[in-house]
C-alpha cells in the first residue's frame, strides 16, 4: 500500500493502542469497570497488530500467520485450563515468554542492522537482549521453585551474592564495549549468555515464598526490556507499555517488601528462610508436646457456637485447593446466623491478591474480604477465628520477639480472639522456617490434615446438627 498512508496508519494505531492500555489499567481501580477495561486493552492490542501488518516493511506473511495461530492456541489453552491456584506459576511462565521474545527480537535486529548500527540503538538493543534473557531464565527459575520442580528452600553457596553481582556488572561493562564498537559480535553474545546465567544464579538463593517479589521485579525488567525495544525500533507504544509495566512491577514488589517489613536487599540477597537461619525449625520440634491438638468434633463445637467468625487464609488454602470448601463451610455457618468475615494479608499466598482470586472463584463476595488495616482491631471482638493454611502472616513473633526474622512484619492479631482453630497438615514451620507461638497458645486448637479434607468433615458434621 502507499507508504504515506501507512506512515500515518501505524503511528496512529499505536497511539490508539497506548490510550487503550492506559484505560485498561485505569479500569482495574475497581472490580466494576475492570472487565470492560481489559476488553479495551485487548482491542488496543488488536489495533496495534493490524496497524503493524500494514507496514510496508513486512513482506512475507506465512511465518507471521503460523506464529500468531500457534501462539493464540497455546496461550488460549493455557489460560482456559489452568487452575486458579496455579496463577503464580502461570504469571512466572509468561514473564519467561515475554523476556525471551524481547531478547530474540533484539538479537535479530542486531543481526540484520549489522555494523552501521547507530550507537544509541546499539545501547538499547544490548539492554533489551541482556534484560530479556535475564528475565527469561529468572522467570523459569521462579516457576520451577513455585512448582516445586526446584527446591523452594534458598540454595546458597560461597560468595553467591558477590559472584552474581560481579557477573551482572561485567555484563553491563561488556554492553558499553559493544556500544563503542557494535562489530564486537562475540562480546555481544557473551553478554546475552551472561544474562541467561545471572537469571538462574540470582534466583536460586531466594526462598520459594519470596518468588512473588522476584516475579514482579522481573516484571519491571521485562517492562524495561520492552521499553528498550521501543527505543531501538523508535516505536512509542512499546516505550509506553514498557514504562507502564516497569512501574507496575516495581510498585508491587515495593508494596510486598513493605508488607513484610523487609528491605529489597534482604529479599534478593538475604537467602531468607534458609534453614540455617532458623535453628528452631524442623518437623514438630521439641515443643511438639505443648500443641493443643483438637478433634473435628471439638472444632465444630466451637465453630457452631460462634456468633462472629473471621477466616484467615494462607498459602495452604491454595495448596489444598480448599477455597470452595471454605465457602461451603462459611455458608453453612451463615445459614445458622453466624456473621463471617474473611481476612487476607497483602502477602498471603504466593502472589499479591492470590487469596482474593481464589475466594472470588469460590464465589465469595469481595465486600466480605478485608485487608489487614481494616480488620486487625476486630479479632479481639470476635468469637472464633479459623486459620486455613496460613502461618507466617498469623505469627505473633512478628509483634513480640525482636529476634525473629519476621519481626516487624504486620500480622493479624489472631491471638487476641477468644478461640482460634488452625488447619494445617503438620506442626511444621511455614516458609520463614520459624516456630509459631500461636500454635501453642491455650485458646488455639490445631486440627491437622489437609485443609480441604478437614473442612469437608466440618461441613458434614455441621449439616448433620
Amino acid at each position, binding site marked *: 500500500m502507499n507508504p504515506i498512508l501507512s506512515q500515518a496508519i501505524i503511528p496512529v494505531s499505536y497511539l490508539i*493502542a497506548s490510550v487503550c492500555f492506559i484505560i485498561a489499567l485505569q479500569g*482495574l481501580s475497581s472490580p466494576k469497570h475492570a472487565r470492560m477495561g481489559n476488553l479495551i*486493552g485487548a482491542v488496543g492490542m488488536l489495533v496495534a497488530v493490524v496497524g503493524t501488518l500494514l507496514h510496508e516493511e513486512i513482506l*512475507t506473511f506465512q511465518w507471521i500467520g503460523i506464529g500468531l495461530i500457534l*501462539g493464540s492456541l497455546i496461550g488460549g489453552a493455557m489460560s482456559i485450563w489452568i487452575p486458579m491456584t496455579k496463577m503464580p506459576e502461570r504469571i512466572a511462565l509468561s514473564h519467561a515468554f515475554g523476556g525471551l521474545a*524481547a531478547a530474540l527480537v533484539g538479537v535479530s535486529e542486531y*543481526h540484520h542492522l549489522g555494523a552501521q548500527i547507530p550507537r544509541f540503538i546499539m545501547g538499547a538493543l544490548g539492554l533489551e537482549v541482556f534484560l530479556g534473557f535475564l528475565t527469561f531464565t529468572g522467570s523459569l527459575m521462579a516457576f520451577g521453585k513455585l512448582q516445586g520442580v526446584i527446591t523452594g528452600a534458598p540454595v546458597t553457596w560461597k560468595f553467591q551474592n558477590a559472584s552474581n553481582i560481579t557477573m551482572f556488572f561485567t555484563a553491563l561493562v561488556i554492553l558499553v564495549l559493544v556500544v563503542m564498537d557494535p562489530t564486537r559480535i562475540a562480546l555481544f553474545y557473551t553478554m546475552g549468555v551472561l544474562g541467561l546465567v545471572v537469571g538462574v544464579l540470582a534466583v536460586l538463593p531466594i526462598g520459594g515464598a519470596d518468588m512473588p517479589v522476584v516475579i514482579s521485579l522481573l516484571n519491571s525488567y521485562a517492562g524495561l526490556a520492552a521499553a528498550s525495544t521501543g527505543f531501538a525500533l523508535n516505536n512509542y507504544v512499546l516505550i509506553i507499555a514498557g514504562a507502564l509495566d*516497569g512501574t507496575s512491577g516495581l*510498585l508491587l514488589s515495593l508494596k510486598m517488601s513493605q508488607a513484610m517489613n523487609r528491605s529489597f536487599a534482604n529479599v534478593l540477597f538475604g537467602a531468607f528462610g534458609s534453614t540455617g537461619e532458623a535453628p528452631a525449625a524442623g518437623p514438630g520440634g521439641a515443643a511438639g508436646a505443648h500443641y493443643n491438638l483438637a478433634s473435628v468434633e471439638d472444632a465444630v463445637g466451637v465453630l457452631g457456637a460462634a456468633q462472629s467468625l473471621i477466616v484467615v487464609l494462607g498459602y495452604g488454602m491454595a495448596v489444598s485447593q480448599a477455597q470452595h470448601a471454605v465457602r461451603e463451610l462459611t455458608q453453612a455457618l451463615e445459614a445458622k446466623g453466624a456473621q463471617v468475615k474473611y481476612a487476607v494479608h497483602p502477602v498471603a499466598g504466593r502472589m499479591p491478591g492470590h487469596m482474593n482470586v481464589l475466594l472470588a472463584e469460590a464465589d465469595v463476595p*469481595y465486600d466480605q474480604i478485608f485487608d489487614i488495616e481494616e480488620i486487625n482491631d476486630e479479632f479481639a471482638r470476635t468469637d472464633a477465628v479459623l486459620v486455613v493454611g496460613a502461618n507466617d502472616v498469623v505469627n505473633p513473633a512478628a509483634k513480640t520477639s525482636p529476634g525473629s526474622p519476621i519481626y516487624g512484619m504486620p500480622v493479624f492479631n489472631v491471638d487476641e480472639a477468644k478461640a482460634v482453630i488452625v488447619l494445617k497438615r503438620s506442626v511444621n514451620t511455614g516458609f520463614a522456617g520459624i516456630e509459631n507461638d500461636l500454635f501453642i497458645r491455650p485458646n488455639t486448637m490445631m486440627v491437622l490434615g489437609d485443609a480441604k479434607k478437614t473442612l469437608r468433615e466440618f461441613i458434614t458434621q455441621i449439616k448433620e446438627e
Partner: protein
Amino acid sequence: MSNELLFGLYIFVLAGFLGHYVIEKVPPLLHTPLMAGTNAISGISLVGSLVSAGGGYGKLSAMLGFVAVICATINTVGGFLITDRMLRMFKKKRPSDAR
C-alpha cells in the same frame, strides 16, 4: 543527540509518571489481575517481533522473529483471556447470598 532518542525519553518519563498514578489506584483485591493484565500488555513486543519475522531480513532474523511472535502471542492472548477469566469471578454480595 538524535531526535528519536529524545522523543523516546519524553514518552518514557511521562508514561512512567502516569503508570505510578494508575497503578497506585489498583486495590490489593485486584493485584493478581493487575499482574496478569500488565503481562498481556507487555505482549505488545509482538509488534516488534512481527517486523523481524516478516521483514525479509534473511533466514536467521525470520526464525528468531517467528519464535518471538509465538512467545509474544502466547503472552498477549493468554494474558487478556486469563485476566478476563479472573475478573469475571469478582462479585459483590447479592441479597440471595445467604442461601
